[in-house]
């Protein structure tokens, strides 16, 4: 049996998640024993026209992006969203908080070189996604796990518990106890509590957990004199836009 062919494509983003894949180094070479990477512009110039697995990085932020995604997705059997921009819209969502016309005026003045700009969206607003690798940037080991699932043809379960679980396992002193705010209690785990390990509050880059135990969260935060709304209003980079905010409103405001 021939090895499955994998193609990487990027849209509107910083390409940092593909760099995490490139940085796997020797692990990446190991991965190439199981798959053929046919398209990965960050590290290679050969272009394969046929592929089975499409790994998409970046948000969709123009009509051109949208058309191109549809075209490259049509050839793929399996689609993987790589990183926050593709999976949830990531920081690109922040531009949706203001009108595009207003922003063009500020950045470009009277000239308009970006006529086809549209509000940013995650790729699952355009195509069906089979696997999600969350995070800004992705956590390399999780990408390897997801690719193993892709190869075995079984689903990958994104952790359904909050970052706090991993943070406790890492024996960090809780940032609330240090007088700070943190989105760990409401953010889906899988990053090994990357920010709190380094003394920085979680900002929710992986998105909210799918089934937050809203009442339990409220109880925990109450202990520190906080509310979910209160912490989200302080750390607004990822949660305060679009899909994530809607989820938050549904779970915590009702």
């Amino acid at each position, binding site marked *: 049996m021939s090895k499955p062919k994998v193609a990487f494509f990027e849209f509107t983003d*910083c390409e*940092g998640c593909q760099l995490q894949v490139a940085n796997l180094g020797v692990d990446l070479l190991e991965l*190439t024993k199981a798959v053929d990477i046919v398209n990965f512009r960050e590290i290679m*110039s050969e272009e394969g026209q046929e592929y089975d697995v499409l790994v998409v990085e970046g948000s969709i932020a*123009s009509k051109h992006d949208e058309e191109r995604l549809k075209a490259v997705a049509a050839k793929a059997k399996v689609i993987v969203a790589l990183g926050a921009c593709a999976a949830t819209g990531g920081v690109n969502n922040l531009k949706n908080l203001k009108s595009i016309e207003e922003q063009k005026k500020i950045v470009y003045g009277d000239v308009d*070189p*970006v006529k086809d700009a549209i509000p940013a969206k995650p790729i699952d607003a355009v195509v069906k996604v089979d696997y999600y690798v969350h995070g800004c940037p992705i956590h390399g080991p999780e990408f390897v796990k997801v690719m193993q699932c892709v190869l075995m043809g079984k689903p990958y379960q994104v952790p359904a518990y909050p970052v706090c679980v991993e943070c406790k396992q890492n024996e960090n002193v809780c940032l609330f106890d240090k007088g700070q705010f943190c989105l760990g209690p409401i953010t889906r785990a899988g990053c090994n509590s990357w920010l709190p390990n*380094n003394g920085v509050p979680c900002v929710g880059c992986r998105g909210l957990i799918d089934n937050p135990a809203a009442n339990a969260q409220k109880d925990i935060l109450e202990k520190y004199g906080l509310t979910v709304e209160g912490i989200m209003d302080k750390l607004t980079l990822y949660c305060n836009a679009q899909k994530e905010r809607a989820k938050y409103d549904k779970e915590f405001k009702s």
Partner: protein
Amino acid sequence: MTKSSSPNPERMAHRIPHSGGAKDVKVDVHYLTRVEGHGDITVDVRAGELKECKFKVIESARFFETMLRGRLIYEAQHLTSRICGICACGHSLASIKASENALGVVPHEDTLLLRKLLLHTEQMDSHVLHAYILVAPDLLGVKSIMPLVKTHRPVIERAFRMKKLSDWAGEILAGRHTHPISFAIGGLTKIPEKAHLQKLREMMVEARADYAETVELFKKLSLPSFERKGQYVALSSPDEYAFYDGKINVNGEKLVDPQDYLSVIKEEVRDYSSAKFVTVNKAPYMVGALARFNLNGDKLDKKSKEIASYLGLKRPCYNTFMNTVAQVVEWGYCLEDSIAILERLIKNGINEEKVLVTMYPKKDQWPVRTRAGRGVGTVEVPRGILFHDYTVDDHGLVSAANCIIPTNQNINNLEADMKKIVPEIVGTQDEEEMRLTLEMLARAYDPCISCSTHLLDVRFIS
């Protein structure tokens, strides 16, 4: 150094040396950028005259400058590091410097040393990625590193080892290299462990052997002989080969305070490109390793100077293709300076009390009150000088922001180089050779896009 030699370069029709049946040539370069995503170069030659040479960035605009407006200044470095995953540390540091200048925060000298170290390791990370993953395959006559895994395993393993070194450095200094975590306004949220600093020093000392091999590999590199006496801009400092701090050096003719960058650097919007075009003295200029070497080469250590001369790099160098060689020289300089910084930090220790800060104001400091003001932050990132400029109100909210990235600054210069080189090669090179020369020219800038410049079409339309 002087300005572009021809008096009105934009307006002059470029005559093509006529060689028998000179064809009409249309060159389309399609490639993707890291920052701006998708860019095209169009070169159109008809009846021996260069009609058009345009660089179009057709990627969706990302609107970072408007995203920043209304956002808390303490979130700025987190957000702007997302401009580029390759130069994330540089963006983060430019952002922190701009924020500190706006807020009137003065960091401790140990913090400055750690920032310089982090920035060095990012130059090393990016330079090795460019030199090995783009240029080494050319040297060895293949299209990417993938075939080399079988044929040149030791070269690839060396590249990964060198890459891993800076990647690990990012991890122990800042939590990670892409989108660094612990570097904050005023200091760090976590102090790097002494044992890690010691191990990093050991790894760097060992890496000298890999660097020596790298120099030998690039000694074999044969580069096109092209010259265009252009303009160069970089940070310059009287104390060191500048990356983190300095004044804006314009062609070695004047030094400008970073706060006044807008008095020399002019941005212009053209309706065909979502990236802005940037000029100095109303003309294109180059930023990056070659610009730094031309302006600051005298500040390199003795060993780096010897390596530059061994690799045939002499100041001033007007051959854009030599930018990769300048990167190889810088890799060695950054390695040696990093070892020196590490030894200092290991010997003296890090002053935790002065360095340790929180990323955001603590619970008892809300609602946030800050000094209102404007601050500019500049650093040299792998591809050249980077500017962040923020205005903050007295609630710590950003009211205006401007970022000028290196690739935008180089676009104009790449256009100017292409205008000069196309007439020089049209009559003398065949289709395949032209394609390769233009690819190599674009790649020499190591624009965020260079990885993808292989996607270059040269179409002969006659």
